């Protein structure tokens, strides 16, 4: 399959029964759907399940030629992601039924996750200023909001955000300079 084909070309071919085009769209969209799932479902396995469900819904629609504007395939997929996550939240039972019914055949290999040197990260965090380190730990320990951290530090929320941005930038620089 020519991976340079546009999304619109692929959508058209799928409506004509082209299975290679289906595989290419799945390969292209799966990592993006997985990211959406990670963000909203906070679990790798739940994100993988979302990939299955969204791809199935998308393929059904494309086969049936239900995508009106084929240039907007990514936005169509995003819409399915949003609806599916809403549905998953409404009904865990429905999720289980779909997974049993469709299995895992349509899930491509997951996108590789960047590796992190944990020891180096610890050294980089320890090199932060005290206030920055506290903000980072409080933010990431249980994803405390800026308001909660601000209350502890007697700072404004915007100050906490500035400290967090500065700290994370410094951590990125520290990790990149030593990797």
């Amino acid at each position, binding site marked *: 399959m020519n991976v340079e084909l546009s999304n619109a070309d692929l959508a058209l071919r799928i409506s004509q029964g082209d299975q290679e085009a289906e595989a290419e769209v799945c390969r292209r969209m799966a990592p*993006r759907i997985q*990211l959406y799932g990670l963000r909203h479902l906070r679990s790798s396995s739940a994100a993988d399940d979302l990939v299955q469900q969204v791809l199935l819904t998308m393929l059904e629609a494309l086969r049936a030629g239900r995508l009106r504007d084929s240039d907007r395939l990514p936005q169509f997929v995003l819409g399915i992601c949003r609806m599916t996550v809403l549905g998953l939240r409404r009904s865990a039972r429905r999720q289980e039924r779909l997974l049993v019914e469709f299995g895992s055949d349509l899930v491509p290999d997951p996108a590789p996750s*960047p590796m*992190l040197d*944990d020891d180096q990260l*610890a050294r980089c965090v320890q090199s932060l200023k*005290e206030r920055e380190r506290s903000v980072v730990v409080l933010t990431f*320990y*249980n994803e405390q909001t800026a308001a909660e951290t601000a209350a502890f530090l007697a700072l404004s929320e915007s100050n906490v955000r500035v400290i967090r941005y500065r700290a994370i930038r410094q951590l990125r620089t520290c990790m*990149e300079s030593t990797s």
Partner: protein
Amino acid sequence: MTPQHRRRPIACSNPVEADVLMDYWLALLPSSSEETVEEHLVTCDECGDRLREAIALAEGLRTLARSGSLQVVISDEFVKHAAESGQRVRAYAPPPGGSVQCTVAADDDLLVARLAADLSSATRVDLSWCTGEGIEFLRMADIPVRGDAGTVICQQSITMAKASPSNTLIARLVAVDAEEGERLLGEYAFHHTRTIPGPGRWEPS
């Protein structure tokens, strides 16, 4: 981050800022900004890869924050949350000018020092860690404190504490003023007894 994830030229014509990607992951964006980010991510694998880097960093930081291995000033809510989520928290609270006998067990997760002091008049507070002889070996400068808090909660590295031979540490809370210099707010001695098998003193590396 692995070498292949080092900073590289961004080909995306409208890349999402790294700060915004991290806020997106932390669910800190307003909903309209979140929708804009998602509409971009569903079309851009490059920014998707950068989001994966942000996620890796966030997860690394979360793991590190939960490991108890950092020396950091934390909040009472942090300690409560740790205990409620099943972590074994060992806390010591020597009175100002006093001392406490302490240790750590193999299954402890967090080690916390609670240092009571009147912080109301201090504009900047340093936490100085000294040997039993009073020689400073670490200064945590300008620690985050609330003037009305009355207590500084400092997490000690549980990893270091578990490996530490029996010894005495002295913590000093010091108010620092550009004109008046330093003023002792409180001094606290921790007499640590090793209960986990190991060398009787630090081995030269």
